[in-house]
Protein backbone atom coordinates (compact mmCIF):
# COMPACT_ATOMS: atom_id res chain seq x y z
CA UNK A 1 0.00 0.00 0.00
CA UNK A 2 2.75 2.47 0.92
CA UNK A 3 5.01 2.27 -2.10
CA UNK A 4 7.54 5.10 -2.08
CA UNK A 5 8.62 4.59 -5.69
CA UNK A 6 4.98 4.88 -6.82
CA UNK A 7 4.45 7.93 -4.58
CA UNK A 8 7.51 9.68 -6.03
CA UNK A 9 5.96 9.52 -9.52
CA UNK A 10 3.25 11.92 -8.29
CA UNK A 11 5.84 14.63 -7.54
CA UNK A 12 7.11 16.13 -10.82
CA UNK A 13 9.83 18.18 -9.12
CA UNK A 14 11.57 15.03 -7.90
CA UNK A 15 12.57 14.40 -11.52
CA UNK A 16 14.70 17.54 -11.53
CA UNK A 17 18.45 17.58 -11.62
CA UNK A 18 20.28 20.19 -9.55
CA UNK A 19 23.86 20.98 -10.54
CA UNK A 20 23.84 17.80 -12.61
CA UNK A 21 22.69 15.56 -9.76
CA UNK A 22 19.23 14.11 -9.08
CA UNK A 23 17.45 16.30 -6.53
CA UNK A 24 17.50 14.94 -2.99
CA UNK A 25 15.05 17.12 -1.12
CA UNK A 26 15.62 17.04 2.63
CA UNK A 27 14.20 20.43 3.58
CA UNK A 28 10.63 19.36 4.21
CA UNK A 29 10.57 21.10 7.58
CA UNK A 30 10.68 24.35 5.60
CA UNK A 31 8.15 23.32 2.96
CA UNK A 32 7.06 20.11 1.28
CA UNK A 33 6.96 19.41 -2.44
CA UNK A 34 3.57 19.15 -4.16
CA UNK A 35 2.00 16.16 -5.88
CA UNK A 36 0.46 16.56 -9.34
CA UNK A 37 -3.02 16.15 -7.78
CA UNK A 38 -2.50 19.39 -5.80
CA UNK A 39 -0.99 21.23 -8.78
CA UNK A 40 -3.92 20.12 -10.96
CA UNK A 41 -6.42 21.27 -8.32
CA UNK A 42 -5.05 24.81 -8.64
CA UNK A 43 -4.99 24.97 -12.42
CA UNK A 44 -8.30 23.08 -12.68
CA UNK A 45 -9.99 25.61 -10.44
CA UNK A 46 -8.75 28.57 -12.50
CA UNK A 47 -9.51 26.90 -15.82
CA UNK A 48 -13.04 25.80 -14.97
CA UNK A 49 -14.59 27.38 -11.88
CA UNK A 50 -12.96 30.69 -10.95
CA UNK A 51 -15.30 33.19 -9.22
CA UNK A 52 -15.51 34.83 -5.82
CA UNK A 53 -17.05 32.87 -2.95
CA UNK A 54 -20.05 33.61 -0.69
CA UNK A 55 -21.17 36.44 -2.99
CA UNK A 56 -22.62 35.83 -6.42
CA UNK A 57 -25.67 33.75 -7.27
CA UNK A 58 -24.28 32.73 -10.62
CA UNK A 59 -23.14 29.23 -11.42
CA UNK A 60 -19.38 29.82 -11.16
CA UNK A 61 -19.71 31.50 -7.77
CA UNK A 62 -21.88 28.65 -6.54
CA UNK A 63 -19.31 26.11 -7.72
CA UNK A 64 -16.44 28.03 -6.15
CA UNK A 65 -18.29 28.38 -2.87
CA UNK A 66 -19.14 24.69 -2.84
CA UNK A 67 -15.51 23.69 -3.56
CA UNK A 68 -14.23 26.13 -0.94
CA UNK A 69 -16.58 24.84 1.76
CA UNK A 70 -15.95 21.26 0.70
CA UNK A 71 -12.23 21.85 1.38
CA UNK A 72 -13.15 23.17 4.81
CA UNK A 73 -15.17 20.00 5.50
CA UNK A 74 -12.20 17.86 4.41
CA UNK A 75 -9.78 19.73 6.66
CA UNK A 76 -12.25 19.53 9.58
CA UNK A 77 -12.66 15.79 9.17
CA UNK A 78 -8.88 15.36 8.86
CA UNK A 79 -8.39 16.63 12.44
CA UNK A 80 -11.79 15.48 13.80
CA UNK A 81 -13.29 18.97 14.12
CA UNK A 82 -16.52 20.61 12.93
CA UNK A 83 -16.34 22.69 9.72
CA UNK A 84 -17.31 25.92 11.52
CA UNK A 85 -14.30 25.42 13.80
CA UNK A 86 -11.89 25.71 10.84
CA UNK A 87 -10.65 29.21 10.03
CA UNK A 88 -8.56 29.70 6.91
CA UNK A 89 -5.59 32.05 7.31
CA UNK A 90 -2.50 32.67 5.20
CA UNK A 91 -0.15 30.47 7.24
CA UNK A 92 0.50 29.08 10.73
CA UNK A 93 2.10 32.39 11.72
CA UNK A 94 -1.15 34.21 11.04
CA UNK A 95 -3.13 31.51 12.87
CA UNK A 96 -0.96 31.92 15.97
CA UNK A 97 -1.05 35.71 15.79
CA UNK A 98 -4.82 35.57 15.36
CA UNK A 99 -5.18 33.93 18.78
CA UNK A 100 -2.78 36.38 20.43
CA UNK A 101 -4.51 39.40 18.86
CA UNK A 102 -8.09 38.27 19.59
CA UNK A 103 -8.31 35.83 22.50
CA UNK A 104 -5.11 37.18 24.05
CA UNK A 105 -6.06 40.84 23.74
CA UNK A 106 -9.49 40.20 25.21
CA UNK A 107 -8.47 37.91 28.06
CA UNK A 108 -4.96 38.74 29.25
CA UNK A 109 -4.54 41.50 31.83
CA UNK A 110 -1.69 42.89 33.93
CA UNK A 111 -0.20 40.28 36.23
CA UNK A 112 -1.58 37.30 34.26
CA UNK A 113 0.75 34.57 33.13
CA UNK A 114 1.28 33.31 29.59
CA UNK A 115 3.17 30.06 29.13
CA UNK A 116 5.25 28.97 26.16
CA UNK A 117 8.51 27.07 25.69
CA UNK A 118 12.12 27.72 24.77
CA UNK A 119 11.80 25.42 21.72
CA UNK A 120 9.14 27.55 19.97
CA UNK A 121 9.44 28.81 16.42
CA UNK A 122 9.60 32.62 16.38
CA UNK A 123 5.98 32.63 15.18
CA UNK A 124 4.83 31.12 18.46
CA UNK A 125 7.27 32.99 20.67
CA UNK A 126 7.23 36.62 19.60
CA UNK A 127 3.40 37.12 19.55
CA UNK A 128 3.27 36.06 23.24
CA UNK A 129 6.41 37.98 24.15
CA UNK A 130 4.85 41.13 22.64
CA UNK A 131 1.43 40.53 24.20
CA UNK A 132 3.00 39.98 27.62
CA UNK A 133 4.97 43.22 27.24
CA UNK A 134 1.93 45.18 26.14
CA UNK A 135 -0.37 43.83 28.86
CA UNK A 136 2.29 43.76 31.61
CA UNK A 137 1.68 40.03 31.90
CA UNK A 138 4.41 37.52 32.77
CA UNK A 139 5.83 35.23 30.08
CA UNK A 140 6.61 31.83 31.56
CA UNK A 141 9.05 29.87 29.40
CA UNK A 142 9.34 26.11 29.82
CA UNK A 143 12.93 24.93 29.36
CA UNK A 144 14.25 21.64 28.04
CA UNK A 145 16.59 19.02 29.48
CA UNK A 146 19.69 17.66 27.77
CA UNK A 147 17.50 15.20 25.83
CA UNK A 148 15.64 18.13 24.31
CA UNK A 149 12.44 17.32 26.20
CA UNK A 150 10.42 19.49 28.56
CA UNK A 151 10.71 17.82 31.98
CA UNK A 152 7.56 17.37 34.12
CA UNK A 153 9.03 19.80 36.64
CA UNK A 154 8.39 22.62 34.14
CA UNK A 155 4.68 21.82 33.85
CA UNK A 156 3.74 23.97 36.86
CA UNK A 157 4.31 26.94 34.54
CA UNK A 158 1.29 25.71 32.56
CA UNK A 159 -1.04 25.39 35.55
CA UNK A 160 -0.36 28.98 36.61
CA UNK A 161 -1.01 30.45 33.17
CA UNK A 162 -4.14 31.81 31.56
CA UNK A 163 -2.99 30.59 28.18
CA UNK A 164 -0.30 28.11 27.17
CA UNK A 165 0.99 28.11 23.61
CA UNK A 166 3.18 25.16 22.78
CA UNK A 167 4.63 23.54 19.71
CA UNK A 168 3.41 19.98 19.07
CA UNK A 169 6.69 18.94 17.43
CA UNK A 170 9.83 21.09 17.50
CA UNK A 171 11.25 22.21 14.15
CA UNK A 172 14.80 21.96 15.55
CA UNK A 173 14.83 19.19 18.14
CA UNK A 174 12.11 17.09 16.54
CA UNK A 175 10.71 16.51 20.04
CA UNK A 176 7.04 15.54 20.16
CA UNK A 177 5.58 17.27 23.21
CA UNK A 178 2.96 15.55 25.40
CA UNK A 179 0.31 18.08 24.39
CA UNK A 180 -2.61 15.99 25.63
CA UNK A 181 -1.17 15.93 29.15
CA UNK A 182 -0.24 19.62 28.91
CA UNK A 183 -3.82 20.43 27.89
CA UNK A 184 -5.20 18.61 30.93
CA UNK A 185 -2.89 20.58 33.21
CA UNK A 186 -3.89 23.86 31.53
CA UNK A 187 -7.59 23.08 31.91
CA UNK A 188 -7.25 21.99 35.55
CA UNK A 189 -5.70 25.38 36.26
CA UNK A 190 -8.53 27.14 34.40
CA UNK A 191 -6.32 28.06 31.42
CA UNK A 192 -6.50 27.44 27.68
CA UNK A 193 -4.04 25.70 25.37
CA UNK A 194 -2.99 26.56 21.83
CA UNK A 195 -0.93 24.04 19.90
CA UNK A 196 1.34 24.88 16.98
CA UNK A 197 1.01 21.81 14.80
CA UNK A 198 3.10 22.99 11.85
CA UNK A 199 5.63 20.14 12.15
CA UNK A 200 3.27 17.46 13.43
CA UNK A 201 0.15 17.42 11.26
CA UNK A 202 1.98 16.68 7.98
CA UNK A 203 3.57 13.62 9.55
CA UNK A 204 1.21 11.93 12.03
CA UNK A 205 -2.49 11.53 12.84
CA UNK A 206 -3.97 14.49 14.71
CA UNK A 207 -7.30 14.40 16.55
CA UNK A 208 -8.16 17.72 18.20
CA UNK A 209 -11.07 16.22 20.17
CA UNK A 210 -8.89 13.50 21.65
CA UNK A 211 -6.19 16.08 22.36
CA UNK A 212 -8.86 18.35 23.84
CA UNK A 213 -6.92 21.45 22.80
CA UNK A 214 -8.63 24.84 22.62
CA UNK A 215 -6.78 25.95 19.50
CA UNK A 216 -4.62 24.16 16.92
CA UNK A 217 -2.64 26.09 14.30
CA UNK A 218 -0.99 24.73 11.16
CA UNK A 219 0.01 25.55 7.62
CA UNK A 220 -0.87 23.99 4.27
CA UNK A 221 2.47 24.18 2.49
CA UNK A 222 4.26 21.75 4.80
CA UNK A 223 1.58 19.08 4.16
CA UNK A 224 1.67 18.99 0.33
CA UNK A 225 -0.60 22.01 -0.05
CA UNK A 226 0.28 25.33 -1.68
CA UNK A 227 1.89 28.28 0.09
CA UNK A 228 -0.32 31.09 1.35
CA UNK A 229 -2.83 28.92 3.14
CA UNK A 230 -2.98 28.17 6.86
CA UNK A 231 -5.55 26.90 9.31
CA UNK A 232 -6.65 27.74 12.80
CA UNK A 233 -8.88 25.28 14.60
CA UNK A 234 -10.69 26.70 17.63
CA UNK A 235 -13.38 25.26 19.88
CA UNK A 236 -16.73 26.59 18.72
CA UNK A 237 -17.70 28.23 22.02
CA UNK A 238 -14.36 30.08 22.20
CA UNK A 239 -14.48 31.30 18.60
CA UNK A 240 -18.01 32.59 19.12
CA UNK A 241 -16.95 34.71 22.10
CA UNK A 242 -13.78 36.08 20.50
CA UNK A 243 -13.67 39.46 18.77
CA UNK A 244 -12.80 39.48 15.04
CA UNK A 245 -9.18 39.62 13.90
CA UNK A 246 -9.52 41.80 10.80
CA UNK A 247 -12.41 43.84 9.50
CA UNK A 248 -13.82 43.88 5.98
CA UNK A 249 -16.08 41.99 3.64
CA UNK A 250 -17.61 38.60 4.46
CA UNK A 251 -16.87 38.87 8.20
CA UNK A 252 -19.81 41.23 8.75
CA UNK A 253 -23.52 40.41 8.40
CA UNK A 254 -24.93 43.89 9.04
CA UNK A 255 -22.74 46.96 8.47
CA UNK A 256 -24.39 50.25 9.40
CA UNK A 257 -23.12 53.73 10.15
CA UNK A 258 -24.25 53.18 13.74
CA UNK A 259 -22.32 49.92 14.14
CA UNK A 260 -21.86 46.39 12.83
CA UNK A 261 -23.01 42.86 13.52
CA UNK A 262 -20.40 40.20 12.85
CA UNK A 263 -21.00 37.19 10.65
CA UNK A 264 -21.15 33.68 12.15
CA UNK A 265 -18.02 31.62 12.68
CA UNK A 266 -15.85 30.78 10.84
CA UNK A 267 -16.63 33.68 8.47
CA UNK A 268 -16.21 36.22 11.31
CA UNK A 269 -12.47 35.50 11.07
CA UNK A 270 -12.16 35.43 7.28
CA UNK A 271 -12.28 39.06 6.18
CA UNK A 272 -11.81 39.75 2.49
CA UNK A 273 -11.48 37.45 -0.51
CA UNK A 274 -9.65 34.34 0.68
CA UNK A 275 -7.00 32.29 -1.12
CA UNK A 276 -9.71 30.23 -2.83
CA UNK A 277 -7.53 28.19 -5.18
CA UNK A 278 -5.07 27.50 -2.36
CA UNK A 279 -7.80 26.27 -0.05
CA UNK A 280 -9.25 24.01 -2.71
CA UNK A 281 -5.76 22.64 -3.38
CA UNK A 282 -5.34 22.14 0.37
CA UNK A 283 -8.42 19.93 0.17
CA UNK A 284 -6.67 17.93 -2.56
CA UNK A 285 -3.60 17.62 -0.31
CA UNK A 286 -5.79 16.24 2.49
CA UNK A 287 -7.28 13.72 0.04
CA UNK A 288 -3.78 12.66 -0.95
CA UNK A 289 -2.65 12.19 2.66
CA UNK A 290 -5.85 10.29 3.53
CA UNK A 291 -5.32 7.97 0.58
CA UNK A 292 -1.88 7.03 1.93
CA UNK A 293 -2.97 7.00 5.57
CA UNK A 294 -1.32 9.13 8.24
CA UNK A 295 -0.36 6.05 10.28
CA UNK A 296 1.50 4.68 7.26
CA UNK A 297 3.26 7.99 6.65
CA UNK A 298 4.36 8.09 10.28
CA UNK A 299 5.61 4.50 10.13
CA UNK A 300 7.62 5.26 6.97
CA UNK A 301 9.21 8.32 8.56
CA UNK A 302 10.05 6.54 11.82
CA UNK A 303 11.96 4.03 9.71
CA UNK A 304 13.82 6.86 7.96
CA UNK A 305 14.66 8.55 11.30
CA UNK A 306 16.06 5.32 12.73
CA UNK A 307 18.10 4.68 9.61
CA UNK A 308 19.42 8.25 9.43
CA UNK A 309 20.40 8.25 13.10
CA UNK A 310 22.31 5.03 12.68
CA UNK A 311 24.21 6.44 9.68
CA UNK A 312 24.74 10.00 10.97
CA UNK A 313 26.19 8.81 14.25
CA UNK A 314 29.13 7.36 12.37
CA UNK A 315 30.28 10.83 11.29
CA UNK A 316 33.24 12.09 13.27
CA UNK A 317 32.49 15.08 15.49
CA UNK A 318 28.73 15.09 14.96
CA UNK A 319 26.24 16.09 17.62
CA UNK A 320 22.54 15.51 16.92
CA UNK A 321 20.10 17.58 18.94
CA UNK A 322 16.88 16.35 20.51
CA UNK A 323 15.61 12.92 21.56
CA UNK A 324 17.67 10.02 20.28
CA UNK A 325 14.74 7.60 20.04
CA UNK A 326 12.76 7.74 16.80
CA UNK A 327 9.30 7.31 18.39
CA UNK A 328 9.86 10.42 20.51
CA UNK A 329 10.48 12.71 17.56
CA UNK A 330 9.41 13.73 14.08
CA UNK A 331 11.65 13.49 11.03
CA UNK A 332 13.48 16.73 11.65
CA UNK A 333 17.14 16.11 12.50
CA UNK A 334 19.29 19.11 13.44
CA UNK A 335 22.98 18.64 14.06
CA UNK A 336 26.41 20.21 14.01
CA UNK A 337 29.76 18.75 13.06
CA UNK A 338 32.78 19.97 14.95
CA UNK A 339 34.74 22.51 12.94
CA UNK A 340 32.18 22.70 10.13
CA UNK A 341 29.78 25.61 9.73
CA UNK A 342 26.20 24.57 8.97
CA UNK A 343 25.86 27.09 6.16
CA UNK A 344 29.01 25.75 4.50
CA UNK A 345 27.68 22.21 4.77
CA UNK A 346 24.29 23.18 3.29
CA UNK A 347 25.92 25.23 0.56
CA UNK A 348 28.37 22.51 -0.50
CA UNK A 349 25.66 19.81 -0.36
CA UNK A 350 23.68 21.91 -2.82
CA UNK A 351 26.49 21.36 -5.32
CA UNK A 352 25.48 17.70 -5.22
CA UNK A 353 21.76 18.42 -5.59
CA UNK A 354 21.05 17.83 -1.91
CA UNK A 355 18.77 20.41 -0.27
CA UNK A 356 19.05 20.86 3.49
CA UNK A 357 18.52 23.82 5.81
CA UNK A 358 21.08 25.67 7.90
CA UNK A 359 20.91 28.42 10.50
CA UNK A 360 18.57 29.05 13.40
CA UNK A 361 15.45 27.70 11.60
CA UNK A 362 13.47 30.68 13.00
CA UNK A 363 14.08 29.26 16.47
CA UNK A 364 16.96 31.26 17.92
CA UNK A 365 15.91 30.92 21.60
CA UNK A 366 16.55 27.16 21.64
CA UNK A 367 19.98 27.61 20.02
CA UNK A 368 20.88 30.28 22.58
CA UNK A 369 19.54 28.15 25.44
CA UNK A 370 21.60 25.13 24.40
CA UNK A 371 24.55 27.45 23.64
CA UNK A 372 24.97 25.89 20.24
CA UNK A 373 25.93 27.32 16.87
CA UNK A 374 23.37 27.67 14.10
CA UNK A 375 22.67 24.10 13.03
CA UNK A 376 22.31 22.00 9.90
CA UNK A 377 18.92 20.33 9.54
CA UNK A 378 17.65 17.49 7.40
CA UNK A 379 13.92 16.84 7.41
CA UNK A 380 12.00 14.01 5.77
CA UNK A 381 8.67 13.49 4.15
CA UNK A 382 6.70 10.66 2.68
CA UNK A 383 8.68 10.58 -0.60
CA UNK A 384 12.15 10.31 0.95
CA UNK A 385 14.06 7.04 0.83
CA UNK A 386 16.87 5.22 2.62
CA UNK A 387 18.74 5.36 -0.69
CA UNK A 388 18.81 9.15 -0.43
CA UNK A 389 20.33 8.90 3.05
CA UNK A 390 22.94 6.56 1.57
CA UNK A 391 23.89 9.28 -0.92
CA UNK A 392 23.85 12.03 1.71
CA UNK A 393 26.19 10.49 4.30
CA UNK A 394 29.34 10.11 2.14
CA UNK A 395 28.78 13.63 0.77
CA UNK A 396 28.76 15.02 4.32
CA UNK A 397 31.93 13.07 5.07
CA UNK A 398 33.56 14.40 1.92
CA UNK A 399 32.71 18.03 2.78
CA UNK A 400 33.87 17.55 6.36
CA UNK A 401 37.23 16.27 5.11
CA UNK A 402 37.52 19.06 2.56
CA UNK A 403 36.84 21.90 5.00
CA UNK A 404 38.55 20.69 8.15
Amino acid sequence: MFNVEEIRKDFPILQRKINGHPLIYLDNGATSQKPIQVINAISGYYMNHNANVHRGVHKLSEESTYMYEEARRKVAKFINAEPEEIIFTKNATESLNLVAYTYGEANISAGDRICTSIMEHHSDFIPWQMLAGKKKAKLEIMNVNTEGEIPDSEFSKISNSKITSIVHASNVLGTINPVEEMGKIAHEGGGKILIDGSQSIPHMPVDVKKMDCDFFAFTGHKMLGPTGIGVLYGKKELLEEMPPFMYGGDMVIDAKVEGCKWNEIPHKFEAGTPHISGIIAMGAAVDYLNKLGMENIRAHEVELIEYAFQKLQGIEGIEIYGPQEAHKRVGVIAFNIKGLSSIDLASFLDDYGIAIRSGHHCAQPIHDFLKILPSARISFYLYNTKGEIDVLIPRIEEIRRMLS
Partner: protein
Amino acid sequence: MSENRYKKFIELFKNPLNRHEMEDADISHEGQNTCGDKLTVFLKIKDGRIVDASYEGAFCAFSNASASQVTEFIKGMTLEEVEAIDNPKLFQLIGDDLSDNPHRLSCILFPLRTVKEACKKFKEHGPDKNYQKPKKGISCHCDEHNAELGL
Protein backbone atom coordinates in the same frame (compact mmCIF):
# COMPACT_ATOMS: atom_id res chain seq x y z
CA MET B 1 32.51 20.22 -8.32
CA SER B 2 32.69 22.33 -5.21
CA GLU B 3 36.35 21.84 -4.36
CA ASN B 4 37.49 23.44 -7.63
CA ARG B 5 34.78 26.05 -7.69
CA TYR B 6 35.80 27.36 -4.28
CA LYS B 7 39.45 26.41 -4.24
CA LYS B 8 40.52 29.92 -3.33
CA PHE B 9 38.09 30.10 -0.40
CA ILE B 10 39.17 26.75 0.91
CA GLU B 11 42.83 27.76 0.83
CA LEU B 12 42.08 30.97 2.68
CA PHE B 13 39.82 29.16 5.09
CA LYS B 14 42.40 26.56 5.91
CA ASN B 15 45.23 29.07 6.29
CA PRO B 16 43.64 32.29 7.45
CA LEU B 17 45.64 35.37 8.33
CA ASN B 18 44.93 37.38 11.48
CA ARG B 19 42.51 34.92 13.04
CA HIS B 20 43.20 35.44 16.71
CA GLU B 21 41.99 37.43 19.67
CA MET B 22 43.86 40.65 20.54
CA GLU B 23 43.76 41.47 24.23
CA ASP B 24 45.34 44.92 23.86
CA ALA B 25 43.15 46.11 20.97
CA ASP B 26 41.98 49.72 21.02
CA ILE B 27 38.56 48.61 19.94
CA SER B 28 36.78 45.28 19.65
CA HIS B 29 33.39 44.84 18.09
CA GLU B 30 31.11 41.86 17.61
CA GLY B 31 28.94 41.72 14.50
CA GLN B 32 26.10 39.27 13.81
CA ASN B 33 25.10 38.05 10.39
CA THR B 34 21.51 37.20 9.46
CA CYS B 35 22.31 33.47 9.50
CA GLY B 36 23.37 33.68 13.17
CA ASP B 37 27.13 33.74 12.60
CA LYS B 38 29.10 35.99 14.96
CA LEU B 39 32.45 37.64 14.30
CA THR B 40 34.47 39.92 16.57
CA VAL B 41 36.92 42.37 15.00
CA PHE B 42 39.92 43.70 16.95
CA LEU B 43 41.70 46.89 15.85
CA LYS B 44 44.77 48.73 17.05
CA ILE B 45 44.56 52.34 15.95
CA LYS B 46 47.27 55.00 16.13
CA ASP B 47 46.82 58.60 14.87
CA GLY B 48 43.71 57.62 12.96
CA ARG B 49 45.46 54.77 11.19
CA ILE B 50 44.95 51.03 11.66
CA VAL B 51 48.21 49.51 12.82
CA ASP B 52 46.92 46.01 13.50
CA ALA B 53 43.74 44.03 12.88
CA SER B 54 42.47 40.58 13.76
CA TYR B 55 39.23 38.63 14.13
CA GLU B 56 37.72 35.63 15.93
CA GLY B 57 34.32 34.07 16.51
CA ALA B 58 31.99 31.46 15.07
CA PHE B 59 31.37 31.78 11.35
CA CYS B 60 31.46 29.98 8.04
CA ALA B 61 34.37 29.32 5.68
CA PHE B 62 33.35 32.12 3.32
CA SER B 63 33.26 34.69 6.13
CA ASN B 64 36.55 33.37 7.38
CA ALA B 65 38.19 33.74 3.97
CA SER B 66 36.79 37.23 3.58
CA ALA B 67 37.76 38.33 7.10
CA SER B 68 41.29 37.09 6.49
CA GLN B 69 41.67 39.22 3.35
CA VAL B 70 39.94 42.28 4.78
CA THR B 71 41.91 42.44 8.04
CA GLU B 72 45.16 42.08 6.09
CA PHE B 73 44.18 44.74 3.56
CA ILE B 74 43.21 47.44 6.08
CA LYS B 75 46.50 47.45 7.96
CA GLY B 76 48.06 50.89 7.50
CA MET B 77 44.84 52.49 6.26
CA THR B 78 43.11 55.51 7.78
CA LEU B 79 39.61 55.04 9.16
CA GLU B 80 38.28 57.10 6.24
CA GLU B 81 40.02 54.83 3.74
CA VAL B 82 38.45 51.79 5.38
CA GLU B 83 35.06 53.47 5.22
CA ALA B 84 35.55 53.95 1.47
CA ILE B 85 36.17 50.27 0.66
CA ASP B 86 33.30 49.25 -1.60
CA ASN B 87 31.96 45.90 -2.77
CA PRO B 88 33.90 45.83 -6.09
CA LYS B 89 37.13 46.33 -4.12
CA LEU B 90 36.12 43.53 -1.76
CA PHE B 91 35.34 41.19 -4.67
CA GLN B 92 38.76 42.02 -6.11
CA LEU B 93 40.46 41.16 -2.81
CA ILE B 94 38.64 37.85 -2.60
CA GLY B 95 38.92 37.07 -6.30
CA ASP B 96 35.21 36.29 -6.68
CA ASP B 97 31.99 38.30 -6.75
CA LEU B 98 29.80 35.30 -5.88
CA SER B 99 27.56 36.08 -8.85
CA ASP B 100 27.08 32.34 -9.40
CA ASN B 101 26.29 31.78 -5.74
CA PRO B 102 24.35 34.85 -4.56
CA HIS B 103 23.05 33.24 -1.38
CA ARG B 104 26.60 33.28 -0.01
CA LEU B 105 27.11 36.97 -0.78
CA SER B 106 26.13 38.02 2.74
CA CYS B 107 28.87 35.70 4.10
CA ILE B 108 31.63 37.63 2.36
CA LEU B 109 30.16 41.09 3.01
CA PHE B 110 29.77 40.38 6.72
CA PRO B 111 33.43 40.86 7.88
CA LEU B 112 33.86 44.18 6.03
CA ARG B 113 30.58 45.42 7.51
CA THR B 114 31.78 44.47 11.00
CA VAL B 115 35.14 46.21 10.45
CA LYS B 116 33.33 49.38 9.36
CA GLU B 117 31.07 49.20 12.42
CA ALA B 118 34.17 48.92 14.64
CA CYS B 119 35.74 51.97 12.95
CA LYS B 120 32.52 53.94 13.41
CA LYS B 121 32.38 52.98 17.07
CA PHE B 122 35.98 54.14 17.51
CA LYS B 123 35.34 57.45 15.74
CA GLU B 124 32.26 58.13 17.85
CA HIS B 125 33.41 56.93 21.25
CA GLY B 126 37.20 56.70 21.08
CA PRO B 127 39.24 53.75 22.30
CA ASP B 128 37.58 51.10 24.42
CA LYS B 129 40.07 48.87 26.17
CA ASN B 130 37.36 46.75 27.73
CA TYR B 131 38.37 43.60 26.02
CA GLN B 132 35.47 41.27 25.41
CA LYS B 133 36.11 37.65 24.70
CA PRO B 134 34.28 36.67 21.51
CA LYS B 135 31.15 34.69 22.13
CA LYS B 136 31.90 31.37 20.61
CA GLY B 137 29.10 28.90 20.10
CA ILE B 138 29.92 25.23 20.17
CA SER B 139 29.06 22.42 17.88
CA CYS B 140 29.00 19.64 20.44
CA HIS B 141 28.34 19.06 24.10
CA CYS B 142 31.41 17.00 24.87
CA ASP B 143 32.78 17.17 28.43
CA GLU B 144 35.37 19.73 27.41
CA HIS B 145 32.77 22.08 25.93
CA ASN B 146 30.34 21.59 28.77
CA ALA B 147 33.07 22.61 31.22
CA GLU B 148 33.84 25.67 29.08
CA LEU B 149 30.17 26.66 29.20
CA GLY B 150 29.76 25.84 32.86
CA LEU B 151 27.14 23.19 32.16
